[in-house]
C-alpha cells in the first residue's frame, strides 16, 4: 500500500496554491455571473426614447457628439449640478452631458459654455440665446388648465417670466415658443407629480440622432 507523505512544506505549498486559485476563480466567476445576469438599466425617455436635452449653447447633436471629448468639465462647472453624465448604459452617450429637468433644472448661469474646452457647448452671452429645448403644457394635466385648481408655479419659476411663459386668467400658463429657452425650471417646480404637466422637449431642428 503506497504511503502518501504529507510534509509541512508540501502542505503549505498546496494550501497557498489552492487559496490563490480559489480566489481567482471566485473573483472571475462572480464578475462573470454579475455581467451575464445584469439587466441593462433602461434610461428615462429623455435620454433614449425622446431626444435628450443638452446644456445651453450645445451644438446640434451630431456636431456635439463629434466635439464632446467627455471630459466632464461642464458638469463640474455647473453651478447647481443640473448637468448629469450618464454611465455606460447610455452606450455612445457615456459621459456626455445631459439635463433632466425633473431632477434638477438648468439655472442658465452659462458656466458650462465657459468651461467647455472644445466648443461643443458654445459660450453664450445672454440667457435668452440658449435653446436647450421647448416647454410644452399638457392641458389635461395642468391644474390651472383643467380647472381643478389655480397654480401658477411654472410662471413664477420661469427665469424669463412674462416673456417665455405668459398667463391667461386663472393662472393658466401659455408658453411663447420663440422665447422659451427650455431651461426646465417650470418642469422642476410643476406641482403635478409623476407625470409633469409642463415638460421640456428637445427642439426638432436639434435632433439628429
Amino acid at each position, binding site marked *: 500500500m503506497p504511503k502518501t507523505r504529507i510534509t509541512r512544506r508540501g502542505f503549505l505549498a498546496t494550501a*497557498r496554491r489552492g487559496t490563490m*486559485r480559489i480566489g*481567482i476563480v471566485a473573483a472571475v466567476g462572480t464578475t462573470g455571473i454579475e455581467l451575464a445576469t445584469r439587466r441593462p438599466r433602461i434610461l428615462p425617455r429623455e435620454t433614449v426614447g425622446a431626444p435628450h436635452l443638452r446644456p445651453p449653447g450645445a451644438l446640434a447633436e451630431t456636431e456635439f457628439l463629434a*466635439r*464632446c471629448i467627455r*471630459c*466632464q468639465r461642464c458638469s463640474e462647472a455647473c453651478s447647481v449640478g443640473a448637468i448629469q453624465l450618464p*454611465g455606460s448604459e447610455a452606450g455612445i452617450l457615456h459621459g456626455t452631458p445631459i439635463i433632466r429637468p425633473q431632477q434638477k433644472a438648468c439655472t442658465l448661469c452659462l*458656466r458650462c459654455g465657459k468651461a467647455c474646452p472644445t466648443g461643443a457647448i458654445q459660450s453664450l452671452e445672454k440667457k435668452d440665446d440658449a435653446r436647450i429645448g421647448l416647454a410644452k403644457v399638457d392641458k389635461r394635466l395642468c391644474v390651472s388648465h383643467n380647472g381643478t385648481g389655480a397654480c401658477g408655479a411654472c410662471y413664477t419659476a420661469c427665469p424669463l417670466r412674462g416673456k417665455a411663459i405668459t398667463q391667461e386668467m386663472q393662472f393658466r400658463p401659455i408658453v411663447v415658443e420663440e422665447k422659451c429657452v427650455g431651461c426646465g425650471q417650470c418642469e422642476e417646480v410643476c406641482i403635478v407629480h409623476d407625470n409633469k404637466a409642463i415638460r421640456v422637449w428637445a427642439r426638432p431642428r436639434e435632433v439628429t440622432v
Partner: protein
Amino acid sequence: MKRGRLVVAIRRCVQLSVIALLVVLPVLSQYGHYRAARAIEDLEGTWRGTVFTYLERTIGAMPDPQALLDKFVGGLWSMKLFGVSITDPLAVLEMTAASRAWHPALWISLLIPVVLTVLLGRVFCAWICPMHLLLEITNSARRLVKWAELPSWDIHFGRGNKYLVLGLGLVAVAVLGTPLMALIYPPAVIGREIQAGLRLHTLTAGASVILGIALFELLISRRWWCRYVCPGGAVYSLLGAYRAVRVRRAVQECTACAKCITACEMGLRPMVDQMGAECDNCGDCVKACPEGALGWVVSIEDLRRPGEFAPGYAPGTAPKAEATTPTRSAASGTDITVDSPETRVGVA
C-alpha cells in the same frame, strides 16, 4: 543611486498628489452644487456633510467662492487648474479627427503638456498617469503570482503596436465621428470613474477596462498596456522622442549587471544605451544602478538620435575602450531578440 532614490520618491509624491487632485476636484464641484442649492445642512451626519461644512467655513468665507471653484474643474483628460486650461494631446487629436473643426482655445490648452513632453520626454506617463501607478503595483504583484505558483506568462509584442492603435483609433474616430479612445484611455477613464463613484455611487464599464488591463498585465504580459498599446502613450512617445532631458550611462562605471534592464518598466535597456521614445524619465533604472553609473543629462547635441547614444559616450569623460567591451555586442542588437532576465517566462 541616491539621486535615483530621491527622484523616485518625488515621483511617488507627485503620483499620489495627482490621485488626490482627481478626487478633490469632483468633491469641490459637488460642494459648489450643494452650496448653490443651500443644501449643505441637509447632509449633516454624512461624510459629505462634514467635508462640505469644512469647505463652507474655508472657501465659503472667501469673497467670491464661485469664481474660485470655476478655476478648478475637470480631470486628467481636460482640466482647468488655476484658471489655466490643460488638455491631453490625444483628446485634441480625437476631437479634431471627429469634428474636423478648428478650435483655437483647445490648441492653446495643449501648450503646457506639449512643451513639457518635448523637453522632458514622456513624463506624463510615469509622473502623472494614475494608471501607471496602478500597473506598477500590478507589476510588483507578479511576484505574488509567482509565489503562489500560478501560471503566468510574459508575452512580448512590438513596441510599434501602439502607433498602430493610435492610427487605427483616429481613423475609427474620424469615420464614426465621435471620440472613442476616451472610452478606453485609462487617465480619462479613471477620472470618469472617480466622478461616477462620487456622484452616482457606482462604477461604469470603464472600471472593467481598467481591471481587464491590470489582470492581463498580471498574468499574461508584463507592462503590456504602456509599452505596446496605449494610444496616449504613443502620442507622448512621438512628442518626447527628441527630449532634452535624458538618462545617460557613464560607461566607465557600468559593470553590466543588467539591474537597470530588469528595473525598467518600459522594457528599455539602459545598460546598452538603448533608451527609446518610451523612456518616461521615471528614475527606476537610476535608482536600481548599484554603481551610480546612470544619471540625467540635459543634452541638445544629440537630438538627432532619439533612442540610442554612441556606445562609450559619457558626459565630460573620454570613453575607455576596455570599459565598453561587455556592452558593445549588445548595443548593436535589436530590441526584443536579445534575451535578458526580464524576458524569462513565469512558472508555468
